[in-house]
């Protein structure tokens, strides 16, 4: 038994009751990372000095304040795409090796404001491009439930570290499923907020119109506490919604009685592994038993969503990564014989194969003569995908489906087949195209591997997602299970 097995509210009670201090809690997280992460590779770097400083400050607040924030003193990990002032931030890419941002991402600043304690920067696929974490420029992360398998990506370090109890919670980013997929593969909760619900300021961009920061945590409530802290408008990100954040905590206790939940036919009719199907069907039965009405719905444009995604995301990334030129930051090639070579050497050495592929693809779909056939058309298909969701949300309160068609796959299994890798996100990426809310919640296991259920809610429907997710969590009752070798 470790303190890291406890939920945030349990830890909060212990901290307030002085059963343990934030310094002790951070020390335990860092100690576990020290002794166990050699196997996992979930941290790119731990931040002991920062953690100690923040934990001490948190302990003072816990002693002084009548009502300290729920996250005060709680250890948290930041996916390495989040800029942390003075702390190396690489986005999992060699091209950013040594980059110490002079500023904090808004989400990082908000967590710090509430007293959360940063224990480290979490590994991820390079610039968040990948579904397995094998595209990290530094090291792969493995799945704590089976170290031969991937943790999912791209927020694989965040998910694996939460599952293995190396941190209490972590932030990830979800562009096509990068929070929900690793959450499902590692047996933790992962939330993808609606586009614009959480600030992207200081988040190293993958695809600007799809990226959202979201929490990974052991429980739905933990995820809600982190989300409540980071959500809301930010004057530095013009795409954040000005709408106030709804009562997310209240949603957890409402239950699902009387809700109509849709099951998208296109998500369940083909390609699901049997074990996944079985876990999903039991989740459906629990929800019905809790009083929800389940109906089949159709999202007919789903068949085009993957294609649209793999035009829009690469197009945006080809432009977003243009600033990685080795002039203002990164190792660079300042001694190259010419300017052109300086660019090309820095970028060729700095970018891994998947990044090169997507940058090349994105450059192609935006280039003159191809824009209309690819980019413009993909944006129109995006409209169709969004309209599908709007239409069904007139009839149902939320959608449920498996998060992924399979459980965690083996390391190396899909690295040589980009298309097979891309298909991993088939059930998650439509939500990013439409900008709606979603989460993945652990619902059971198949052959010892966790299986997540995806809940999709309307735009700014985070409360609905959490409400349904909490019901699945209660029925599944699996969140206290710890991967073998990481318990105690």
């Amino acid at each position, binding site marked *: 038994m470790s303190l890291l097995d406890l939920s945030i509210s349990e830890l909060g009670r212990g901290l307030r009751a002085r059963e343990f201090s934030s310094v002790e809690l951070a020390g335990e997280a860092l100690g576990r990372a020290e002794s166990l992460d050699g196997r996992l590779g979930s941290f790119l770097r731990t931040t002991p000095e920062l953690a100690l400083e923040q934990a001490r400050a948190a302990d003072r607040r816990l002693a002084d304040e009548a009502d300290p924030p729920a996250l005060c003193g709680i250890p948290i990990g930041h996916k390495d*795409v*989040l*800029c942390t002032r003075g702390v190396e*931030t690489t*986005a999992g890419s060699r091209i*950013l090796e040594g*980059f110490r*941002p*002079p*500023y904090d*991402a808004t989400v990082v600043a908000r967590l710090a404001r509430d007293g959360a304690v940063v224990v480290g920067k979490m590994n991820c696929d390079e610039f968040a491009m990948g579904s397995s974490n094998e595209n990290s420029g530094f090291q792969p992360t493995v799945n704590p439930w089976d170290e031969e398998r991937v943790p999912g990506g791209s927020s694989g370090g965040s998910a694996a570290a939460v599952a293995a109890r190396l941190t209490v919670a972590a932030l990830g980013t979800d562009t096509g499923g990068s929070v929900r997929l690793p959450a499902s593969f590692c047996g933790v909760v992962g939330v993808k907020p609606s586009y614009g619900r959480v600030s*992207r*300021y*200081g*988040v*190293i*961009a993958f*695809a*600007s*119109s799809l990226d959202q920061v979201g929490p990974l945590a052991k429980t739905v409530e933990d995820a809600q506490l982190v989300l409540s802290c980071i959500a809301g408008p930010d*004057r*530095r*990100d*013009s*795409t954040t919604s000005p709408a106030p954040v709804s009562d997310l905590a209240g949603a957890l206790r409402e239950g699902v009685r009387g809700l109509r939940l849709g099951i998208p036919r296109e998500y369940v009719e083909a390609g699901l592994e049997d074990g996944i199907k079985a876990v999903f069907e039991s989740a459906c039965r629990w929800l019905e038993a809790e009083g929800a009405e389940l109906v089949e719905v159709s999202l007919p444009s789903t068949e085009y969503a993957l294609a649209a995604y793999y035009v829009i995301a690469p*197009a*945006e990334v*080809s*432009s977003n*990564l*243009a*600033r*990685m*030129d080795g*002039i*203002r*930051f990164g190792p660079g090639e300042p001694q190259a014989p010419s*300017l052109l070579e300086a*660019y090309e050497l820095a970028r060729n050495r700095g970018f891994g194969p998947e990044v090169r592929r997507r940058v090349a693809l994105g*450059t192609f779909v*935006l*280039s*003159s003569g191809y*824009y209309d056939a690819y*980019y413009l058309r993909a944006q129109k298909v995006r409209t169709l995908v969004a309209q599908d969701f709007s239409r069904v949300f007139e009839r149902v309160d939320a959608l449920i489906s498996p998060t992924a068609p399979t459980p965690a796959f083996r390391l190396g299994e899909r690295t040589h087949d980009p298309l097979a890798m891309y298909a991993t996100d088939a059930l998650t990426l439509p939500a990013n195209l439409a900008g709606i809310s979603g989460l993945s919640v652990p619902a059971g296991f198949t052959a010892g591997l966790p299986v997540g259920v995806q809940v999709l809610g309307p735009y700014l429907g985070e409360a609905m997602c959490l409400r349904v997710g909490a019901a699945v969590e209660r029925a599944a009752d699996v969140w206290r299970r710890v991967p073998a070798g990481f318990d105690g």
Partner: protein
Amino acid sequence: MAELQAVIGLEVHAQLLTRSKMFCGCRAEYLGLPPNSNTCPTCLGLPGALPVINRRAVEMTIQTALALGCRIPEFSKFDRKNYFYPDLPKGYQISQYDLPLSLGGHLEFEVDGERRSCGITRVHLEEDAGTLHHAGEIHTAKFSLVDLNRAGVPLMEIVGEPDLRSPREAPQYLRALRQLLLHLGVNDGNMEQGSLRCDANISLRPRGQRELGVKVEVKNMNSFRSLEAALEFEVRRQSAVIESGGTVHQETRGWSEVEQATVSQRSKEEAQDYRYFPEPDLPPLQVSRDLVERLRGALPEPPLRLRDRLRDQHQLGEEQAALITERPQDAAYFEAMVAAGAPPRSAANWQLGPLQALCKDAKLDIEHSPVPAVELAALVRMVEAGEVSGTTGREVLVEAFAMGRSPVDLIRERGLIQVSDAAQMQAWVDGAILQLPKAAADFRSGNDRALGPLVGAVRKASGGVANPDLASRLLRERLGRGGG
């Protein structure tokens, strides 16, 4: 072969006089700052940083577009223009591609007193790049150096239609545009320092032919003179190519001040492909009709109309009216002087003559003149009324300007008000004739030039306050040459 005709269109980039940059809170004023001391994560293009639109820059652009008679569409957006260059930190410039803030206007200008009009294709908004310096000689330097203080300064692009037909028209168009921007208060008009920049497209075609010839883009002209010179050079160069049976290549050429020639800029190894797409970090703009009407209502009087009005209202000369309306602060100063009772023509003379010279020497803008319009108007009134001489007035103005004092106060303090009292004058006149008998004799016998020293003697005896006109009249009478 038919005579060749030039077809010219100008693209003008104007930095906007906002306080902060286009997409971040850094200062828009960057000149004279230590290198790279005016940046933030956004304009430095650091990973994760995001742009936020400066409302004032949008308003200034719309206002300029309205002054040019452009349409303001209800929907507009920003796009990314992708290319690699060390002065472009993000690897893309945020600009406007297919839905600019404004479309379709025109600019009136004059060539040799004849009014012309040139179409305006569009006015849009973008961000400026940083500046590059070369370590050592440009052609042998091993390194270039980048300063990003300018990166992200709001830049308005005014694209003109190819309506100009001779190099002579180009600087006149640009002058009129510059004057308009000055009157709108959106740009400082400084071409030398690059806050106002001009590129030109020029092609030739046989007169009477409808299709356009091959277009050459010319850059690096940083004065009206170099703009005209570069275009004249291109006309000669392209004519020679065509007349010798060759074809003009579509290319970009730079004006070299040293060589007084345009030089082909090293041809790029591939055609530029900017891969424009909508800027996903910025929601689009929906320009409300209320805003458009509010900005339209706040437009100043168009410079040409202001010039004509002042000319007609105050019987100014053509050139005088043009000079007094060159910049809005000039016109404002002039109108304030007139309002304070100064006769308009004298007011203009004093302003354009002595005052402007003083301002120029002191490197002060007229709006910050230590002698405000009301004070100068009072001085001009005294001169006109004969209470002080023009010479004294000018001398006092110099001192008042230097001391930041009122010229009229100085005149009163020093007792410089001209004496026109006949008895007092008579005494000084008699004194002068006694003092300069030879001059008196010469004048009496018809030598007009001898009057000067006599008047001088009167002035001297009076301590400078004798009214010189009265003095010469009395001297004439005394010496028997009264009545002309």
